[in-house]
């Protein structure tokens, strides 16, 4: 099943004033089995788009279609069987076990009492297994960490066995290993189960590495495409340009615009050279392409390794990058 929009316009209705339109004339497609990353600066309307797609909020105009049917016209239970959500809300219900939380995901499939069949229990166990959260089943949700709770919320959405899953910043508040794990999990789910996943995130790097496609949201609207295409045609850089962030086409990552210092040349491509360049960028120096006034290099000789700094014709040796940077700063200020 495919999620698509027809001239969708999202935002908020305001009494006595014109509508606050966040984006309009959107024609988007979310295909089975693909992981799509929704990227954009804060406040651009990513959450509003997700809420509109999930029928939690009425669009200002246009339609959201699940297959051929309008999401807003589907009965709540039928919609829940096709579309699951993980929102930014972080409920911590008291006296509820991890298992009971995931059980809630079976709601659209069970009777009025929510009775579970053996099949339901199998699906719940599978969902817990999929997020590597089997050991959380017996623990009280209120006592779990953010990362553990997020795992269970995703397992709950999985237990819904929907065709489409929308996640609003599932990696916020998680530490780096957990973020990498979560994005890898989503990619794996999309690949293996044919689930169509749309995930909004601020982890640009992780999105670039994992997503099949990106939706770049900016004031101009939404631009969709493969991450690499969007990087090469400059869209990625343009989306975040206003934030004072610079997209480094060569390295495929974002850096803050702060390279106002003097240019420094670093020779070579080995590991020491890579880390040397990172250090210089961090300290606010621009990197130059060819040998010039200032040059830094890594020296290997019989006594061990050292870092050699050359400014015009004065050469000095340093034991660490830190020491070399200190010397560089002292001499250039």
């Amino acid at each position, binding site marked *: 099943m495919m999620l698509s929009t027809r001239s969708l316009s999202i935002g908020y209705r305001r009494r006595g004033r014109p509508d606050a339109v966040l984006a309009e004339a959107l024609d988007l497609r979310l295909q089975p089995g693909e992981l799509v990353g929704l990227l954009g600066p804060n406040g651009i309307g990513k959450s509003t788009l997700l809420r509109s797609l999930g029928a*939690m909020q009425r669009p200002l105009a246009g339609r959201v279609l699940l297959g051929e049917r309008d999401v807003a016209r589907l009965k*709540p239970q039928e919609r829940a069987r096709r*579309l699951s959500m993980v*929102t930014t*809300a972080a409920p911590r219900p008291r006296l509820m076990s991890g*298992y009971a939380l995931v059980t*809630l995901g079976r*709601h659209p499939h069970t009777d009025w009492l929510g009775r579970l069949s053996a099949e339901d229990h199998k699906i719940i166990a599978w969902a817990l297994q999929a997020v590597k959260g089997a050991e959380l089943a017996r623990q009280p949700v209120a006592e779990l960490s953010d990362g553990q709770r997020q795992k269970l919320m995703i397992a709950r959405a999985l237990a819904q066995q929907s065709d489409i899953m929308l996640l609003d910043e599932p990696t916020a508040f998680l530490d780096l290993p957990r973020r990498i794990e979560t994005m890898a999990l989503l990619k794996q789910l999309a690949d293996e189960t044919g689930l169509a996943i749309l995930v909004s995130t601020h982890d640009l790097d992780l999105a670039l590495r994992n997503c099949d496609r990106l939706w770049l949201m900016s004031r101009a609207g939404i631009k969709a495409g493969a991450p690499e295409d969007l990087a090469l045609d400059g869209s990625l850089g343009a989306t975040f340009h206003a934030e004072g962030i610079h997209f480094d086409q060569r390295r495929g990552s974002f850096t803050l615009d702060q390279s106002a210092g003097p240019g420094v040349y670093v020779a070579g491509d080995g590991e020491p050279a890579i880390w040397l360049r990172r250090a210089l960028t961090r300290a606010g120096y621009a990197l130059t392409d060819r040998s010039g006034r200032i040059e830094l290099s890594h020296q290997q000789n019989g006594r061990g390794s050292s870092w050699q700094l050359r400014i015009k014709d004065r050469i000095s040796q340093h034991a660490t990058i830190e020491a070399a940077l200190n010397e560089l700063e002292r001499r250039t200020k």
Partner: protein
Amino acid sequence: MSQLAGKPAAAKAAELSRQRLIERETSGAKPYLLMPLLALLAVLLLLSLALGSASIPLEQIITVLLGGQADHQSWTNIILKFRLPKTATAALAGMALGVSGLLMQTYFRNPLAEPFVLGVSSGASLGVALVVLSSGAVGGALLAGLGLAGDLLLTAAAGAGAALSMSLVLLVAVRVRSGVTLLVLGLMFGYLVGALVSLLLYFALPERIQAYINWTFGSFSGVTAAQLPILALFVISGLLLSAALVKPLNALLLGEDYARSLGIHLRWTRFAIILATALLVSAVTAFCGPIAFLGIAVPHLARGWLGVSDHRLLLPGVCLAGACVALCAALIAELPGNNLVLPLNVVTALLGAPVVMLVVLRQLRGRA
């Protein structure tokens, strides 16, 4: 179920019961914990029938309950005409107030929410106060000489006030999206009506004020055997509606957005919750007065005892616990072996306020 098809029925049943055990274990639900509550309720019911200004032996009570005659005709009369209606009223009111508190606490995701916050008791108070004032204006003798008719008038007015305020809340609830907004509106409505009641009381005659105050004290003894079926009808229909809501209530534990994404029809659920509350609370308030603290305290007691948030277990638990607490309060209020009867609200406050304090303190500790 599908992959089980074809297996012998016994194997299917074994598989299912094994799965239920897994579920029970992992969700922490212990249905057998309801049994002690049930036993306690039975004891309290008998005590409530036995104790009072005249103590009646247990076997005599059982004889009367089974349709026989007690050794003394007066005992039969006391049991059937006074203690049975009072006991049934207390049990019904306890269930109703407890369950309505549970509904509100879950819906608003606020451990201190209860039906009175929505302005129901204020509405009932307004109805009663209106009767008090108008009787004062029309002629002083109107109520004082009427006795039972006056009581009925007061009760009807309270019911009308409660139903009116509940319909107002219902009207707003269909339009207002957020639970918190509804809670604030209910509180403000309560203050507004409270001010009107104070104004009416300010201009009322002293003896009318006394009648009003008596109603606000709360009592389970005012319901006659003839009125009991009306109360029971309201309470039981409210409880049945609540039972039909256990699944949406469980989903609402995650908040409205998640409940909706789990396929809950939010607007209907909200409407049904408030309708159930109206059914449960308006009749009880009209017949027994505005009884405080049961609505807040009972759900917390039941949660503490059962250790779950699953409404499939919590709802029967709250029913039993509510009936037990109400019967307890009524017993304490009557001070067995003594002719003195304490106002019911004094007892419920003494029992309920510490529970509320504990809840607040525990919440603070949880946040720190």
